[in-house]
């Protein structure tokens, strides 16, 4: 003990285990099922995915309203009965409508597998969209909307997406108060019958899956057929606003929200893993350059983050923070300074090593346990990619050079195309 010294223990190399126990099958009607059997607890996660996201709507709020109405009454049950049943079996059900996909994720105990599937099928494929419930939902949503518009974060983010993707594209279009009057049961029914089709559903099951799972899935989902309906696809044009810099005034705000970024490539592009790496250096972890400068040195903010994210038809990079009003200008200057450093000075080897190990650790966490694996699987699958996407990231993490990073920065982080939105 006396000879013990408090010196840093050696760091051992580690890599994520990316090959996962995935079983895929097709149900009788063509619905695809992916099963990830792992874990120690008797709990199941099921995610049902449809190409029914915001990109498919021709009116604001349509995709999310159709999704939120799924538990507001079905052929067999009223809204109240349906929710009581879901709660009775301890099923935690999250409805979700994102930019590209929509559906639900449910968590429940393995012993209620069959019952849960029965209820999920009722929710997804037998909603009746009662007018009265719809009216109540839209009133509630308007109430929430008004509250959310009081937050500088939301004001800045909404305007950011509108600027980057354009007000005529579902990725960018902002919601306004009159939109809450526009939803009708027939609009929702039409959206649902076109886009929530059992044959086109993908189901991702993970956890301690019972032996009877395939039979249950076939029983509750496999026999469902939808009417043949022509889907008329109209593609909206993605076109950013010519106004690059904008401030939205918010009376009484003590902080200013800052959003800076632009449209960029998505994860189908071969440069994407490298761009992710560059983004982590800039603002993707606690030790990032933006955090060090703007939080840990200047104390301007509680947090500052940079993300690179993918949509089906595009992608975006965005730096976001909230700072005291008096420091907003200085914070924007520092952000630009940090971007310029990435464009001009090669990243040092020791910083590459930190980010590389940090990202490798993140990859291990992305594959830790059945629920995490299911989410990772989906994040690649929805872009038509397989798990080799993650192997590519692993490879990039381990091999990227300062020269490649400099080239990536000068390709994807030039400041000519950036939008600078502030609210406060």
């Amino acid at each position: 003990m006396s000879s013990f010294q408090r010196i840093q223990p050696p760091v051992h190399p580690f890599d994520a285990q990316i090959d996962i126990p995935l079983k895929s099958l097709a149900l009788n009607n063509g619905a695809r099922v992916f099963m990830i059997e792992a874990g120690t607890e008797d709990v199941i996660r099921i995610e049902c995915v449809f190409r029914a996201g915001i990109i498919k709507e021709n009116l604001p709020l349509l995709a999310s309203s159709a999704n939120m109405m799924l538990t507001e009454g079905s052929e067999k049950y009223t809204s109240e009965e349906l929710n009581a049943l879901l709660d009775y079996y301890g099923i935690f059900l999250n409805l979700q409508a994102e930019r590209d996909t929509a559906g639900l994720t449910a968590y429940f105990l393995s012993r209620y597998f069959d019952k849960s599937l029965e209820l999920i099928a009722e929710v997804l494929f037998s909603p009746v969209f009662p007018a009265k419930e719809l009216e109540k939902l839209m009133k509630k949503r308007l109430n929430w909307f008004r509250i959310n518009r009081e937050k500088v974060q939301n004001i800045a983010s909404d305007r950011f997406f509108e600027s980057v993707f354009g007000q005529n594209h579902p990725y960018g279009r902002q919601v306004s108060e009159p939109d809450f009057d526009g939803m009708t049961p027939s609009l929702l029914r039409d959206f649902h019958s076109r886009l929530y089709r059992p044959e086109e559903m993908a189901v991702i099951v993970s956890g301690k899956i019972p032996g009877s799972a395939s039979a249950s899935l076939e029983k509750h989902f496999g026999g469902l057929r939808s009417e043949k309906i022509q889907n008329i696809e109209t593609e909206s044009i993605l076109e950013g606003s010519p106004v690059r810099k904008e401030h939205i005034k918010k009376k009484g705000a003590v902080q200013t929200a800052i959003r800076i970024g632009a449209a960029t490539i998505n994860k189908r592009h071969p440069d994407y893993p490298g761009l992710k790496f560059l983004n982590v250096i800039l603002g993707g972890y606690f030790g990032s350059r933006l955090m060090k400068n703007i939080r840990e040195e200047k104390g301007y903010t509680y947090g500052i983050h940079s993300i690179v994210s993918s949509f089906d038809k595009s992608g975006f990079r965005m730096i976001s923070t909230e700072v005291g009003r008096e420091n907003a200008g200085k914070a924007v200057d520092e952000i630009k300074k940090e971007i310029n450093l990435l464009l001009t000075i090669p990243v040092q080897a020791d910083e590459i090593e930190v980010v590389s190990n940090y990202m490798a650790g993140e990859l291990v966490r992305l594959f830790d346990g059945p629920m995490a694996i299911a989410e990772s699987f989906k994040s690649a699958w929805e872009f038509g990619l397989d798990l080799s996407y993650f192997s590519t990231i692993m490879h990039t993490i381990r091999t990227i050079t300062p020269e490649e990073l400099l080239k990536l920065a000068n390709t994807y982080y030039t400041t000519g195309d950036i939008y600078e939105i502030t609210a406060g």
Partner: protein
Amino acid sequence: MIDFRSYRLDNGLRLLVHEDRSTPLVAMNVLYDAGSRDEDPSLTGMAHLVEHLMYCGTGNIPEYDLPLQLAGGENNAFTNNDITNYYLTLPSGNIETAFWLESDRMLAPDFTGRKLDVQKSVVIEEFKQRYLNQPYGDAMLRLRPLAYTTHPYRWPTIGIDPSHIERISLENVQHFFSRHYNPGKAILTLTGNITPDRAYDLAQLWFGSIPSGEQHDRSLPSEPVQTEERHMTVERDLPASALYKAWHMGPRSGSDFHTMDLITDLLAGGESGRLYNRVVRDLNLFSEINAYITSDLDPGLVIVTGKLMKGVNIEKAETAVIRVIDELKDTVPMDDEIDKVKNRYESSTVLSNTSILNKALNLSVFELLGDASRINREVENYRAVSKPMIKDAAIRHFNPENCSTLYYIASKKTGK
């Protein structure tokens, strides 16, 4: 069932280890028995500020995060009224890095004036971001001092006011640290891909030589029994009013804890709770309604909060809420309803146990309560709550003289 081993080192440090070979990671949780209830009433926000400063390095390790990131790790921390809790995960091969980092900052963090100044600004920005610049963000800042007149739960963890944080000196920080951060006040928990023997050896090696420090008994002023209804109204430039009601209840280890938790789930758990059905679904008085217990270690609160629909009179909305709550006192719930909330509890517990971080935190909290093995009896404890217990607890708690009410009135003009 969560199997674990427990140890106590000579310096008083408690160690818990739960081995789970299904993960490539190890989670480490370090719980300090120090929260905002331990603060000087004129320097509130101290415990949370110290949490920030604990990341600013030691004499030996200039920066906490850098070596952790190099080892593939990730960490965070939180402070509440009762505890300050630090947690991290790492690939199992690098777990010794966590022992080195956590033991070094328990031994001797390097607080300086410059670091203190920066973290004070960061925390003040956090104060603004989460409490002052958010709609309803200051509601709990108002409700706490209404519900508590004496006990330190009367102030929030972030502090009473940014001026308290500004006032904290380096000496104040040193004093708080030396009083509360030592092995006798800490619980070290490891979960995941590590054997108990290895965890014990590493704990002995890295933490064993840290001096146990002075131990002080906690003597906090206890809250007198409330005997009169309390009421406060604030007006804000917002589009929707909100109602907050708080009733006193017993401590985390008290006999009513599980019953009160289930009551809040009966009232507002999921979208089939009684309050949801009545005041949101049927009467459209609220756009959302919540009920929860604060789960504080000392006697805590049952809280009901809701956002009102536009144009609804707040007194009318409140009457409707009280009527639903009063029904708990008059009749016992149906079997199905009781089974429902117990099933929901079981589901959420099993789900929570899929995470090594959750398991580590829960083990640590139960150990602080006196017995880590309670983690395996909680589902049973909830299952044991009976219909008469619910009625009886409702009668004892939900009285006007035990209640504090905050009307958060919206004065913003909106269309329609």
